[in-house]
């Protein structure tokens, strides 16, 4: 902890004419677990994709380890940063092994195939995430939760310094949600992988993240520790609902209670 890993300066993101976010500036330290939250359409995914250079920034600069990200070649960036996107419909039948091998692509020259070193890394990460029993299956045979584990493993196979996830637990039941976030937390604390994750579940974000970036109305509403930023006024403002925020007795982190209309 301590060193600045990611530095975003006055970033504007959008698609062509449409500006989704303006004036985004924040810094992330090495070893942090950052959460990005906000209402639907706030631009969470857009921010992620802009940092990852999937869509071009409209304005501003991004620095990865003090180096301008636009100066990185795509391959070099892929060797440092990995991304687990939201799951989409897949039309072809992929085996789990095929997916996992993709994690080594940024390290392989065009004419070479996977060397022993690469295969060892793959095996190592399989053990790390505990998906040994899934390795001989095809993707479509797995449940959403299992698939997500596969994609996270693939991202780890890239041996990144920074891992981005876009709503990793959407569509998952609470058991899988916890399982995945426990895994991410372990990777963050034990394996020293910095993580930025977009989340929709405020409580999940609160329990696991070191700091939260709250996006609202095209800009950063708040940025800081969950205790600092998750107060009922902020939440009620950006989600337009009624909540009560109390402290979780075990984790000591804020816990958001939603209040149904009949009780208001």
């Amino acid at each position: 902890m301590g060193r600045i890993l990611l530095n975003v300066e006055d970033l504007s993101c959008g698609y062509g004419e449409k500006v989704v976010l303006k004036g985004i500036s924040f810094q992330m330290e090495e070893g942090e677990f950052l959460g990005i939250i906000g209402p639907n359409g706030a631009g969470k995914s857009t921010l992620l994709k802009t940092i990852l250079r999937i869509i071009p920034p409209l304005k501003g600069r991004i620095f990865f380890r003090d180096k301008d990200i636009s100066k990185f070649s795509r391959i070099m960036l892929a060797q440092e940063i990995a991304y687990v996107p939201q799951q989409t419909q897949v039309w072809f039948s992929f085996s789990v092994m095929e997916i996992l091998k993709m994690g080594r692509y940024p390290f392989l020259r065009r004419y070479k195939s996977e060397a022993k070193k690469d295969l060892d890394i793959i095996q190592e990460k399989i053990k790390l995430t505990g998906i040994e029993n899934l390795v001989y299956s095809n993707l479509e045979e797995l449940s959403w939760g299992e698939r997500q584990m596969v994609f996270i493993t693939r991202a780890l196979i890239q041996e990144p310094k920074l891992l981005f996830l876009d709503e990793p637990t959407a569509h998952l039941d609470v058991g899988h949600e916890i399982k995945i976030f426990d895994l991410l937390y372990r990777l963050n604390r034990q394996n020293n992988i910095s993580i930025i994750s977009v989340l929709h579940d405020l409580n999940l974000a609160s329990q696991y993240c070191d700091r939260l970036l709250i996006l609202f109305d095209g800009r950063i509403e708040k940025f800081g520790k969950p205790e600092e930023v998750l107060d009922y006024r902020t939440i009620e403002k950006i989600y337009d609902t009624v909540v009560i925020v109390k402290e979780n007795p075990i984790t000591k982190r804020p816990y958001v209670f939603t209040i149904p209309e009949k009780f208001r």
Partner: protein
Amino acid sequence: MGKISIKKKGFLFIGILCLILIFLILFSGFWGTVPISVKNIFSMDRDRIIFILRLKRIILGAMVGGMLSVAGVIFQAILRNPLADPYILGVSSGGGLGAVLALIWGGSFLKIPVFAFLGGLLSIFLVQSLSQVNGRLPPQNLLLSGVVIGIIFTNILVFIVWFFEDRLIHGIIWWLLGNLDVIENNLLLTVILMGILGTFFSFLFARELNVLSLGEEEAISLGIDVEKTKRVLVYIASLITAIAVSVCGIIGFVGLIIPHIVRFFSGNEHRLLIPGSFLMGGIFVVISDTFARTFFSPVEIPIGVITALIGGPMFLILLQKKKKILFK
């Protein structure tokens, strides 16, 4: 230990296909309208000529089958659509239009393949231009533009055929149903060259194709220059399709079915899928052609009819098996 034999299995698979294709190429020449025997090839002039004629046609068929299959693989990956075939971006319509224009203007008979080829290139150029958004080529745009350009060119084609029907009636049969008994001789070398080069270059992009068929965002995050890769691959695939169409007309189903058949063995790994499809496509067309020229001998069945008759039901069977994946 399981990983090493996967590689070996891959080589074995490709090796077997190679052997089958070579065997077919060497020995299909003995079937045909006119009976010939091995002895006579070396002694009797006429038999030798006929054997070589058949050999040329068989090799042409193998190449075209291979090229269409590889193009099918590429389009299916880039468009992330298992129903894509080489003609989906309008290359065939452009080719047909070019061929028909050449037929009208008469002149040297070599004009037809050349014009057909140019027509195919025009199609793909238009499709790429229309699909561009901010310097990117979204697959949905490619698909839509391809269909639109295809329809437009086909309609122009239909109009021309209606208008000039006296000169075109027979020539259109060639284009619509496919023809491997090609009269122009000098084209075979070009086809072989383009076929091998095209497949080779596609093979170089095997990893990119692996990831692209999963998703573009995945590809970008793995360091792939997606837009450049798409552009290059679309051109390669369109080029080899245009050449196939301009020489042999429309041979359907090959580019659609063969990639799926090979996937049964190779999965989605394009390092196997591409060479496998090239070889399997060649095998399929050579067998179909042998059938086409022997079943009603001496009458020839158009090759497109055979590939449709075999390919159609195969496609339905495939669709049944894959229902789970496609319609989940």
